[in-house]
């Protein structure tokens, strides 16, 4: 997804993690459910990997003067 920057040089979005390989569509309902569960667990793990540990401090730290 590299593209030219408007401001400055170099390619952008270099921090973007590689997209996970598309999973093969499961064939049965049970397989679908299992797939969803695995997908959710995996997603929640990825979220925990990027969130700052101290949730309260992070949220309180975001104070912006009012806009329009």
């Amino acid at each position, binding site marked *: *997804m590299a*593209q*030219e*920057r*408007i*401001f*400055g040089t170099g390619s*952008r*979005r270099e*921090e*973007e*993690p590689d*997209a*996970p390989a*598309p999973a093969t569509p499961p064939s049965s309902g049970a397989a679908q459910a299992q797939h969803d569960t695995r*997908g*959710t*667990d995996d*997603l*929640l793990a*990825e*979220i925990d990997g*990027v*969130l*700052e*540990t*101290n*949730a*309260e*401090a*992070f*949220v*309180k*730290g*975001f*104070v*912006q*003067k*009012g*806009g*329009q």
Partner: protein
Amino acid sequence: MERRIYGIETEFGLTHSAPQGRPLGADETARRLFAPVLAWGRASNVFLPNGGRLYLDVGSHPEYATAEAATLQDVVAQDAAGERIVDDLRAQLQESLDAEGVGGTVHLFKNNADSAGNSFGSHENYMIARRTEFSRLVQHLLPLLVTRQILVGAGRVHPDGPPSFGSLALGDGRPGYSFSQRADHVWEGSSSATTRSRPMINTRDEPHADAERYRRLHVITGDSSMSQTTTALKIGITDAVLRMIEAGQILPDRTLADPAAALRQVSHDLTGLAPLELAAGGHRSAIELQREYLEEVTRFVQRHGAHHDRLDWVLGLWDRGLRAVEEQDSALVDRELDWAIKKKLLDSYASAHGMDWSHPRMAQLDLAYHDTSARHGLFHMLERRGAVETFVTPQDVERAVVEGPPTRAQMRGRFVAAAHDAGVSTTVDWVHLKLNGEHQQSTVMCKDPFATTQPDVEGLIAEITSGRA
């Protein structure tokens, strides 16, 4: 009108978080974020080669105004491009801070509220016909704007329960989730103010076009959307109702007794059933009002035909979004509408960790959903996993970063790009283009926002590229 210009202005939230060190202040973060803009355009308020505008607004908010778009696809692509452009500035600032050893993380949020109760907006602009009586238009549009949040709200966690609003009891008063980010921060129906007493419709009359024919409707009550499909539905519904009002369709009076109170009641009631008081007496729920608008628009379209190629899509998602609330089954729209996409994510996190709405992690996830970073942003994480729908292709967005949509914006963008490449100084606004300097060029006016070319503008561009300017 059958064809109109759309635009979206987005104020972004910005913060530098450094748990191990000293974070930069808000003003300094914004100033440093805009350093590359200043270097590029010698100002912190610039028009871009895609025709859009980027600037630092009230309260040190980075703000991006999309170029004039004439289709839903183009306004969605331009809005997404704006997020990319500002996020790229964030990435550059992060690189600089890392190189300086300052550390911490810069976060840019496309949301509408911070932890201290401040709000910043997403402003929608619709070109409307001057001949339509404005007070009648506002009368019929306000009840739509008050209730459309049950479809296109961005969702918000309230760890301490709904903020108080006079004596009005909101929701069940307990920690919870609302449809809208912005509803708790809007104070009246329509006025010319923006920050002092924030209205839903700003009545300031700046058409940025032929003032005899057009007016610009400035809606400032909406939430910023992360989801492309939510953006498209938000603009698509509002446009469809405007078209019907402009055509002179007779509509019943649905004026709400207290629009600001109703906005909050609707936001904090996930059932969509709370009775809203009408000025003429009686009550209607958000669901009832939305169903009435949808039926009227559907009948109007049956009589007059579709005015664009995504209207069926708009009407289909409008109906399904209402069913999701009526049937209390948000899974019907949890790939397309922000409030439902976010709620699904938060519900799974809460149930996996045994948390409720009051847990600090919920408010953090709410904020992280709007983080524009591909790595830290939860919406973008879902997008990468294919868990949400899109409205335009990644190629459309890439193109929109560097090129204006086929309106006046494309012409402005070509002018800006040519002048920048040639190092020529210019003065640009939404309507005017001018070359600065000793040549004393006359100002060229672009009054028709649909025109993609104009002989005098082409003349200016030729002058720049031939080195005569």
